[in-house]
């Protein structure tokens, strides 16, 4: 493939070599993110149950909120997948609609998370309360920060799509934010399982 070759067929985001390499680079970034989160999960697992004088987790974790957050993020991952599908069919309108739904669901998730954190702090479990709660807030907070970043990023991509339309460059950018969003859901699956579900039984 020569340096500035542009294919005429195949998904828009892969037509330029730059697009292909950017997406490969983003997968490498995601692999690094997996490792980053693994260190936080390891810390959480090691400090599990070390509540000190603070309220123990099983008294605070509630299944309905954890399930609501999970379903919001799962559904947003699904709608994001459809958005990319619409992009591949070169339907700008479809892409924008489904990306906006994804954004709204992401905001809903963030709302629940903020409510949850405020609630815990009021119940006497803050990041300073004990080793366990430090690890908990660091892990879930880092994920929440990623979601916040994803929402802002997605908003900027939507603005670009409205202004520029679908080109190999905007398609590449949209595909990358799509990968990022699915990745956030992958991390949340493990937070839901390792933090909330295990926190309720142990």
């Amino acid at each position, binding site marked *: 493939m020569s340096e500035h070759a542009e294919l005429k067929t195949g998904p828009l985001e892969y037509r330029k070599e730059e697009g292909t390499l950017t997406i*490969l680079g983003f997968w490498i970034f995601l692999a690094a993110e997996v490792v980053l989160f*693994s*260190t936080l999960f390891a810390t959480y*697992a090691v400090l599990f149950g070390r509540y000190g004088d603070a309220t123990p987790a099983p008294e605070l974790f509630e299944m309905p909120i954890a399930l609501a957050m999970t379903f919001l993020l799962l559904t947003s991952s699904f709608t994001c*997948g459809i958005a990319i599908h619409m992009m591949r069919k070169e339907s700008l309108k479809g892409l924008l609609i489904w990306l906006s739904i994804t954004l709204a669901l992401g905001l809903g998730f963030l709302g629940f998370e903020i409510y949850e954190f405020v609630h815990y702090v009021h119940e006497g479990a803050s990041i300073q309360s004990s080793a366990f709660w430090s690890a908990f807030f660091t892990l879930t907070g880092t994920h929440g920060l990623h979601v916040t970043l994803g929402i802002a990023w997605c908003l900027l991509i939507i603005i670009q799509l409205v202004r520029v339309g679908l080109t190999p460059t905007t398609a590449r950018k949209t595909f990358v934010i799509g990968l990022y969003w699915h990745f956030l859901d*992958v991390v949340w699956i493990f937070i839901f399982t390792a933090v909330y579900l295990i926190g309720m039984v142990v």
Partner: protein
Amino acid sequence: MSEHTEHSESSIPVKHIIGFIASIVLTLVAAYTTVMSGLPVPWIIAIIMILAVIQAVLQLVMFMHIAEKNPIPQYGNILFGFFIAAVVIAGSIWVMSFGMSDMDMNGGSGEEHSDH
């Protein structure tokens, strides 16, 4: 900009719907196993962790197009990332498990460092 629209008009791909429904079912099964099953705790943990891994693979394959025919294969990096993650987590839990029984006799109070 290219104009061609050779794809069919089917709005939502079946693959995504299957992935979505499977994810919801796996989540509900995990929640049910945790709260209602009454199994021994190690079993519950093993079952829900397996369900989580299945769901993560589902996301990667169904939504993230990881197995798709790309100009450059992309799964190598992420698989290596997951391998490192597994080593870090399992290794940390394993190495920190030594001496834990002594600590439990002190009620875990040895863990309350005051921050510098």
